[in-house]
């Protein structure tokens, strides 16, 4: 009888330990998953902002015509496609897309060009959106 009681007690203790461990496992697995996701998002944001910054500078130097790989996106903007490594890619293989929207406001003495860049992955999840404004003196008359 005593032996049996000891066995049951041992099993109960083991089960409680495993229960505690399982709960810890579930929490830690979730945390690891979250850490991986955050790392991926950080990398995406870093590359996207780098690329958008370069596009803004190209626009500043050459205007919208200067971005040769841009294609009209059918929504008054341009779309640029990139692969997993953020190298320019065809639309079908694209892992990331940057949409560029430019608005020219005639100020009389020049044009204030507002550019918004919207980066997203191929699932449509937003990575980041950045906006810049550049003033082009003596370009009155709109875009």
């Amino acid at each position, binding site marked *: 009888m005593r032996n049996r009681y000891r066995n049951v007690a041992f099993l109960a203790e083991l089960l409680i330990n495993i229960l505690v*461990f*399982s709960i810890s496992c579930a929490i830690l697995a979730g945390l690891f998953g979250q850490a991986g996701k955050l790392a991926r998002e950080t*990398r995406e944001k870093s590359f996207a902002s*780098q690329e958008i910054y*370069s596009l803004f*500078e190209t626009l500043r130097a050459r205007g919208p015509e*200067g971005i040769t790989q841009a294609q009209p996106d059918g929504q008054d903007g341009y779309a640029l496609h990139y692969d997993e490594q953020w190298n320019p890619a065809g639309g079908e293989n694209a892992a990331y897309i940057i949409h560029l929207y430019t608005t020219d406001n005639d100020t009389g003495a020049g044009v204030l060009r507002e550019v918004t860049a919207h980066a997203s992955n191929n699932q449509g999840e937003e990575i980041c959106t950045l906006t810049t404004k550049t003033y082009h003196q003596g370009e009155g008359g709109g875009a």
Partner: protein
Amino acid sequence: MRKNSGSSGVAMGILLPMGLICLFAFCSLALALMGGRAYKSIQAGIDDSYGSTVAAGYLRTKLSQNNERGQVSIETEGPYEVLTIQSEQDDRFYITRIFVEEGELRESYTPTSTPFNPSSGVTIAKVNECRFELSEDGLFTAEILSENGVSTRTAFALAGGGGA
């Protein structure tokens, strides 16, 4: 009857705890592996972009600090492609040379008369390769290849078209 209860006692007393301990060990191993994989992927992400991101940020900062007409140019010194930035300080002329040597992006800041010496530069970041381009409209572009082969591009619109 007695024999049966004895064998089920063995199962309960030995096999079940052993099974549970094995399950516990397996879960521990799986968790450790999952943690290792998460850490590895985070580290790989950082390593992938670190050198090239630092180099791109550095180049942009350097150019925006010296963004005046004719100050920036790209020169070829033997096998090296060198980004040069001219500056003046206390009526003396200096030249900043940025180039890649032995897998490192380096910068040297010397008086203009000092000849180019690749070993004298200060290390900025570890990169495999860095290709500079300066077009006539003043757009400076650099393509930086990190140690892990990840390429990062950066561009900067220079005032007055640079000095190429």
